[in-house]
């Protein structure tokens, strides 16, 4: 079982949260697009930001801005306190043991690249890297590059027709040659929640390192890295209601210690001479150059915001959105859902016979509805389902039942227009 325990939570057990009140925290939502109230259903690509996030960055620039870790003046101290305070918030959010296990990156993509490029140096020909068929390109390409450099082999866990990992396939592929398991917690296209905790336990039992792409998981449920027991975990701030331009690589301290630096420059060094440079300690070894300070502050504010919400209530609300969408989808002739896993977050990928996803996206936009269309940076997955792309509505906790209904009313209108 995953951490989404909504199936066992009943409405009566938790206070229903007031979605209209929540929406007031997100100023961008209260606008018209093409003459209609905006219905933002592209949260899987990037989520909107609560006012507290926007204001935290504003406040940082208005009062505290300076470079960090230089220590010569008051603003520098304040900026450092803000910045390191945000790191501590991430540590607490993930329940990591120490804040030095939290590395700032540009996002999930860079976080995975830090690990893949580092491990490429120790991989041997014939070693195996295990990924799944539902990975985002960010969790495929860095490993392909690592495999090419080291002579290691990329192995792919196949899927079933519902978009779940094929039962038993992972166990079959896992062997003494497996050095790394790099797996997404939640598929960005299908919404499938993978049983990563069990997979990690099995991978660890044979001595493999494990990396979890949690970019699509954290916006929907909390993750405890100690419970998961993964070696690395990556996520992006902007999908988690924080600013763009920053993300996190979590790594167990010993795993990060063993990993070579990713980039060279200032901040990541202990001592530089032309003969020999020694690396700074964790986390700074991986943070060359001046970091994204205001963005770290903004992410910290996003985590504060999430922590103040009733996350079980949110999960229930989101699952209700998903159920409604799945129900309404049955009433649209020619509509096929792609990804019908038993355990999934509120992401609905679909195709409609006779309509190209790009037509659907354009005509929904005319009705004020924002979705994503295309291959979603998961071309192997598109090949698996034999589609050029899909249309994807991805929900966040600030979406409403009415918005789900508006989506389907709009889709029916498009069908009337085109078919």
């Amino acid at each position, binding site marked *: 079982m995953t951490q989404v325990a909504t199936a066992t939570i009943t409405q009566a057990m938790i206070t229903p949260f007031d979605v209209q009140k929540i929406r007031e925290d997100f100023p961008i939502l209260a606008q018209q697009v*093409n003459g209609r109230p905006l219905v933002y259903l592209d949260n899987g690509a990037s989520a909107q930001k609560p006012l507290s996030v926007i204001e935290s960055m504003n406040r940082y620039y208005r009062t505290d801005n300076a470079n960090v870790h230089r220590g010569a003046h008051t603003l520098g101290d304040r900026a450092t306190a803000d910045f390191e305070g945000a790191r501590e918030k991430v540590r607490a959010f993930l329940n990591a043991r120490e804040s030095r296990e939290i590395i700032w990156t540009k996002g999930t993509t860079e976080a995975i690249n830090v690990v893949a490029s580092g491990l490429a140096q120790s991989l041997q020909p014939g070693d195996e890297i295990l990924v799944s068929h539902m990975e985002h390109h960010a969790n495929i390409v860095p490993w392909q590059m690592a495999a090419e450099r080291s002579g290691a082999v990329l192995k792919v866990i196949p899927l079933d027709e519902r978009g779940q990992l094929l039962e038993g396939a992972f166990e079959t592929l896992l062997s003494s040659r497996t050095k790394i398991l790099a797996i997404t917690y939640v598929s960005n296209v299908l919404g499938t929640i993978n049983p990563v905790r069990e997979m990690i336990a099995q991978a660890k039992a044979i001595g493999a390192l494990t990396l979890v792409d949690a970019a699509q998981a954290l916006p929907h449920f909390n993750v405890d890295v100690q419970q998961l027991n993964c070696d690395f975990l990556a996520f992006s701030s902007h999908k988690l209601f924080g600013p763009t331009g920053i993300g996190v690589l979590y790594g167990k301290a010993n795993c990060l210690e063993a990993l070579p630096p990713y980039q060279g420059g200032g901040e990541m060094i202990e001592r530089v001479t032309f003969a020999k440079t020694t690396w700074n300690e964790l986390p700074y070894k991986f943070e060359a150059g001046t970091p994204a300070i205001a963005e770290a502050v903004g992410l910290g504010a996003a985590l504060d915001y999430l922590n103040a919400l009733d996350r079980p209530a949110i999960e229930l609300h989101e699952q209700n959105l998903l159920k409604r969408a799945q129900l309404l989808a049955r009433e649209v002739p020619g509509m096929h859902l792609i990804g019908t896993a038993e355990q999934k977050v509120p992401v609905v990928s679909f195709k409609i016979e006779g*309509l*190209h*996803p*790009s*037509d659907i996206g*354009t*005509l929904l936009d*005319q009705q004020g509805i924002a979705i994503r*269309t*295309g291959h979603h940076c998961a071309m192997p997955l598109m090949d698996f389902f034999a589609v*050029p*792309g899909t249309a994807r509505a991805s929900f966040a906790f600030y979406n409403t039942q009415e918005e789900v209904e508006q989506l389907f009313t709009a889709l029916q*209108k498009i069908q009337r*227009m*085109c078919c």
Partner: protein
Amino acid sequence: MTQEQKALFVGNEFGASITTDEILETFSFLDDWEERYAYVIDLGKKLPPFPESEKIELNYVHGCQSQVWLIHYFDQDSGKMYLLIESDAMIVKGLAAVVLAAFNAKTPQELLAVDIEGIFNQMDLIRHISPTRGNGLRSMVKKVQGMARLHC
């Protein structure tokens, strides 16, 4: 080129009996998005069939979210360029029809003199969706203009 294919090119109504002026005029009478898109989609449906055998990488227009193919035939006798475009997306096909109405069956010099941006700007709908989205309108136009330059 077979006679059959040649007939397909030369028989294309866009740029012949269906002109840009006519499209722009019709467009100016349509006032809501539904009518405008329905009209564009209808235009796309009037495109002549595209030969299956020409759906190859060489003819593929990159930079579109949908699949787009574009081929041309230069008629030595008349000095005119004939074009065929295909897409698997209805709106893109409709936009292709607008492009063809402006470019098809013209000499390369005439084609290059067409103010295609001006035409797009007169169609509110196209102005809306052309600049940033992956509909490939710009790629289509560039490819056609590139072909025309080769025959100048």
